[in-house]
């Protein structure tokens, strides 16, 4: 009865870098034609297949990019397992915002949070303002992955979400190993509804 592991991924980045389109592109096949024509692109759930047949479920939270909502971001990245931070490769300013987000996450978010940086709009290579190498070097320096992506062509989109899935799952496995469930010394069935997945009570035998 092993259920699919769920992870919370938050998407950050300045307005207009194409965050919402990126998530939407990734989830597009999750939307089917139906009577509901209005699509809420702000929360998306999608399963990702990892190597070794492991399936994980990503709960992807889009966040508001406008500056006026800046102060509300902590509400959204609270308890997130991973963050996708997007910038626009044709806009140098948006890359500086990435650095600001990283700093904030490092000091405010869960200490184990995994980060993937997305250089979006890579279909407009000729207008590039951020050197790809600089971006990769920066990502390496903070132990994050970097992908060039295009919500328009779809390039790099699946790859970057698979990478974040791989990373959050690895962290989860590491933590699970470090903190194995304490066995119950009293014996008997105990119910535990913990923060994460509900835990099975320790099975028997009664006192």
């Amino acid at each position, binding site marked *: 009865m092993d259920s699919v592991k769920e992870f919370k991924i938050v998407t950050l980045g300045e307005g207009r870098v194409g965050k919402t389109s990126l998530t939407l592109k990734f989830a597009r096949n999750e939307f089917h034609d139906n009577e509901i024509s209005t699509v809420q692109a702000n929360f998306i759930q999608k399963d990702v297949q990892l190597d070794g047949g492991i399936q994980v479920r990503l709960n992807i939270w889009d966040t508001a990019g*406008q500056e006026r909502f800046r102060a509300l971001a902590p509400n959204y990245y609270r308890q997130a397992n991973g963050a996708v931070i997007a910038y626009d490769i044709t806009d140098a300013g948006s890359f500086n915002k990435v650095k600001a987000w990283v700093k904030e996450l490092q000091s405010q978010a869960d200490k184990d949070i995994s980060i993937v940086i997305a250089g979006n709009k890579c279909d407009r290579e000729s207008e590039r303002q951020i050197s790809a190498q600089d971006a990769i070097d920066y990502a390496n320096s903070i132990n994050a992955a970097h992908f060039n992506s295009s919500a328009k062509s779809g390039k790099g989109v699946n790859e970057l979400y698979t990478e974040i899935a791989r990373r959050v799952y690895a962290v989860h496995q590491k933590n699970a190993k470090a903190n194995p469930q304490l066995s119950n010394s009293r014996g008997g069935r105990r*119910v535990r509804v913990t923060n994460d997945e509900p835990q099975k009570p320790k099975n028997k035998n009664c006192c």
Partner: protein
Amino acid sequence: MGQKSSQAKDKVKQEYLKIINSKKKDYYKKNEEILNSSDFKVISQQNWKDYMQQEIELIKDKYSRSSWPLDILSLVNQWNTVKDYKWRSNVLWYDYLQSYKVNTAQDPTPVTTISVSQVTSQYTNSFEAQSLIEFLHGHFQNPNEHFIAAMIGRFNSSFLQEYCLENNELKGNVQTVPKVYSEKMCEDIKGFVMLTLQAMIHYYGGVVAKTIEEKPGEMYDLMLEEVFTNSLQQSLLKVFHLANKDKCDLYEENLEKYSGLTCNDLGIHRYFQLDVEHNKPSKVQGNFGNAIYIEGILNQPRNFKAYGKAVDKLRELENQFSPLKKLGVVIQTSRVLCECVDEYWKDDTTVSKDDLVISADQILSIFLYIVIKAKIPDLSGHVQMICEFGRKIIQNGSMGYYVTTLEACVEQVETMSPELLMKIKEYSLKGY
């Protein structure tokens, strides 16, 4: 003649019983391990009361400052266990019947990324219940005969006596240090819910114990639902209000001050400005962001009933008193909001599906509009109740997203100012 017919009847009856017996045997065989588990034996010996006493002993120290553990203990001591037999054996019968139900075709999965909690459906107090959880809910309506139901009733009265006066106002000591008491009251409720789960393992054993083992989260949600009464939630809302008095006052003051804001004032994208009476687009003129266009919109008459269905839906927060039902209201509001947009644009062929994609910026602004129009007093208290008692797995999923959005709206109302509104206006004029 008559004798023959009665013989035939007897024969049919015999055969029928034979079939039933063999089915029963199959059932017992299949579930042998569960039925013979130590817990089930506990039931047959009728000494689940002893286990309950032990459970309460275990938590007594942790909740030594509260009166409910001792109240429950005295309930256990006085309880006449004979009354419970039918409820406990019913569960076995229910499970047995379930195991022979023909699997009917499942409803097709709804096309949505949002899933709603199990415990929001209507329950029936009968063997027709769709699931064990629903079936158990029926049991809890009988506090005179059913121990767990009695326990829930006793907890509620003990809790209210401890923190509230007869007129339902909070007691003086609670009012003096509301922050301390709000934590204590939440701890009491959570502790009691866990005790009910533990109690169910001993009380029902077998099948229920197995379900609690496999789906502790769902069972926790069920018990949480059972424990919450209107008086309980009122006392929590009051203590939350006192604990955050400054912010609550600010929220109420600003709700009054900014009640006339329009969608445009809040920076909602043109496609979602449902309060504009004649907002039909003309793709030829196109540029929604430009100043002339914005001016045009400003001069349009406003419909103050825009998003009305969503506003009404959100107001249901006040009628639903358990955290999970409140959560359900928030999710439904997010759906109704989409319906409002669909309804508004349904006859307009110039708007394509791709235009009606609601981003995070937009959902926040639209929800803010709905919150301002709904004018729900103590909205932060309702949100706090969901956050306090909802499991993390719920909070980090789709349902959590909209609760967080609502939480963010409350903060937005609290910090609303003419400067902020000016900023939004500038932003809109830039054509975002």
